């Protein structure tokens, strides 16, 4: 299948790639660029494990074709910690025990980051509904919500 030139910025690094039009952004990130922190849980946009941030918005990368992401700025879980410091959301997931098997965690953290960046003042109930596109099978969500609320509070306090 013919390949197309695609230029992406991922976690601040520019990538000029040749990719088949049928490859999803998820496949480009994992198989072409080698960033495997973003997970594939369903390939149908229903579980949120592959959530990344594209131009500031959380998207399920299995639902985006790689070629359509050309020219966009993408942040994955690998790009969240800076200078050896964990992002407050990552730290909050550790502090509260907001992960277990960890497979959904990158997606949850990226979805939470987009929500907190957009508006850290959401109530618990609002976060509950806003995170309804991400599935976690281990935690029952109790500690994930604790994590997101803790991070939101910290981000509010420092902004």
């Amino acid at each position, binding site marked *: 299948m013919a390949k197309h030139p695609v230029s992406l910025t991922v976690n601040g690094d520019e990538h000029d790639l040749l990719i088949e039009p049928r490859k999803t952004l998820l*496949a480009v990130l994992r198989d072409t660029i080698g960033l495997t922190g973003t997970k594939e*849980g369903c390939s*149908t946009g229903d579980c949120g494990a592959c959530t990344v941030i594209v131009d500031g918005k959380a998207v399920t990368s299995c639902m985006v074709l790689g070629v359509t992401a050309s020219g966009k700025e993408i942040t994955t879980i690998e790009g969240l910690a800076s200078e050896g410091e964990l992002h407050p959301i990552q730290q909050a997931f*550790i502090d509260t025990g907001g992960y*277990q*098997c960890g*497979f959904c965690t990158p997606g949850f953290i990226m979805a939470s980051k987009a929500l907190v960046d957009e508006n850290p003042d959401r109530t618990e109930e609002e976060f509950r509904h806003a995170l309804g596109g991400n599935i976690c099978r281990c935690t029952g969500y*109790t500690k994930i919500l604790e994590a997101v609320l803790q991070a939101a509070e910290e981000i509010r306090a420092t902004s």
Partner: protein
Amino acid sequence: MSEYSVVGQKLPRVDAVEKVTGAAQYGADVHPAGMLYGKIVRSKHAHANILSVDTSEAEKLPGVRAIITQDDVPSGRRVFATDKVLYLGEPLAAVAATDPDIAEEAAELIKIEYEVLPVVQDVIESIKPSAPRLHGDATKDGPNRRNISSKIKELSNSEADDNSNEIRKLEAELEKYADEVYYNISAESHTEAGDVKKGFAESDVVVEDTYFIPRVHQTYMEPHVSVASADSSGKITVWASTQGPFAIRSGIAGTLGIPLTQINVIGTTMGGGFGGRFGVIITHVPAVLLSQKSGRPVRVQMTREEEFLDGRPAPGCVIKLKTGATKDGHILARQALAFWDSGSVSGASIGSTIRVRGVYKIPNIKVDAYGVHTNKSGTAAYRAPGAPQAIFAGESQLDDIAEQIGMDPVKFRLMNMREEGDAVPAGGSEPKVGYKETLEAVADAAGWWDREADDNQGWGVAVGDWTNGCGPGGVYVSVHEDGSARIFHGSMDITGTDTAITQIIAEILTIPYENVTIRRGDTDSAPYSTGSGGSVVTFTMGNTAKLAAEDARRRILELASERLNTNEDNLELRDGAVHVITADPPKSISLGELAAFSLSTTGGPIVGKGSFARQPSTPALAAQIAKVEVDPDTGRTRVLKLVASQDVGFAINPMAVEGQIEGGTVQGYAWAMMEEMQYGENGNINPGFVDYRVPTSADLPTVQSVIVEVPAPNGPYGAKGVGEPPITPTLATMANAVNDAIGVRITELPIKPEKVVEALKNNGHEA
């Protein structure tokens, strides 16, 4: 204050940073150079004879490197179907190609000719003489037949005359066939104690009902995956997402006739398991065969759809249950007849039917259970396998009895619970278990005793029991010159067990938790370890870790005695150093100094070894209370409160223990209210998250967990396995709450809105 400084603390997990940064390596993250992508070719029919398999077109597709069928299995053990398929999605062949999309295209190009056969997907339909037979021919001497007419007759002479509902119809139908020989029966299990006939005769109240529990999928978030690499010397390396690398090693060896130690299994970080991640053939064996044929490493990764078609989910079942009690609340007898849907192969937790006994003194009990074949994939364990199903029936019926005799459901349960010293049916006597403490704790925490409910609101309670398993394991611990310790073992971390092991070793060596690291070996390097299922890990590996740390401590004291020139009786290990108890001024030597000293001794470095197999376990109880509100017009149930307590023996890491309770409870909630694998005329019809809904954070409120600690005599620090118990009572908790809210007893899960509306309509409610 706790007598311990590391165990019993809410510490961050040892794998915390790798899990929140995306660094953890799961199965699909493994990518050896030259790796090919495998794809399994699956049956498009639920029951069919295979007339031909033509791979010629697929072979011509550029990028295809290997195609395998059953002909490529030298041992002859069944990996792929040949003459007949028994369920939709059954593997027929597999391909490996240079790109996942090419592999998928090639799989589509393999032409299979089918002769479609009649399908049976319901256990009651399947046992009828008229049902299509899955295994063997149609003769009366064929396999999988039993004469179970007497069992059905025993329970079918109901006095109830309500023929309006599905359950009565079903019973009537069974009665019709009561004298026949039944087919498609894969296994049976029978238990009897006392005399149920006598028990029912002496009872003031007898309640009977039939309970339908659907097949549900464990729905671990990481689909099955393995990467296999067979090198030219015949050595096979498998990166497997599995709960039991050693079981996968022996499974591959047995299936393919390869010497055990020619196979090295590397367990990758596991994206959830819940009992469903032990299968050998599912992806591991096809990956090995593809790698052997292509001479390249091959990854076989299931899609979510394949998980639903060809995973090994939890069996559904039909349980007919009858309970008798006196009007002052003593349960006298209980009898069950159960049919478990084992799918195309045998084995479906049928022995768990006896869990209808619960934790109660029931002097007369009889259980007859059968596994029944249907045109579905086989089943496997799912968190306390079989218990949620049996306990749903048992605990639902207890509430109906409590209601009939006018007794509070919590008090009724407390009154009938077994006590320490009571004889247990399996022999011996009941150990000290926090049955009553756990139920009382949840009642107190939930506000049960002064509960209030508005219209259409209700409260439900249920308890479930489970006992952790036990198995062989080995642990090494080394102490280094900087005073840190390193653990080496081979058991898979099942969401927190590595952390528990680390806490135990830090506690015994009296060094900070941060100074202990843990490393998992593969099956080539690590000592044998039992699989991480059955809530065994903390119990087994915790005990093993304790032995290893104590062994290291022996060497530490020996070295200190030599170094400090004093008898070991004068020495004490505390705060990471060995102190001379009687010394004035104080005299001590740090672990780091001792580790450095050890290198120049004749005895050598500090290496502790722990090896353990089994000790009797102690049962654990989970007790839960839900408050719900049911909308009688839409049938929708909203959870207002969900409280879960559990006797965990001792919580080595309370944060991790709470996580298990919360997660297990929500899985139980989902089984009660949402989840059901559905089957149409040609197999599963809901193989994806749109049609098979699992809960999200938007579906229910925060679960409140309550830890109860009644120590287990043989558990490390008194700990019991905590993973499985919390799912066991929730199915009944929810059904009992719905019943309390609107007076409707739902016996067929899940409690979907349409069922509630229908049931209310039958009760005369007008929407």
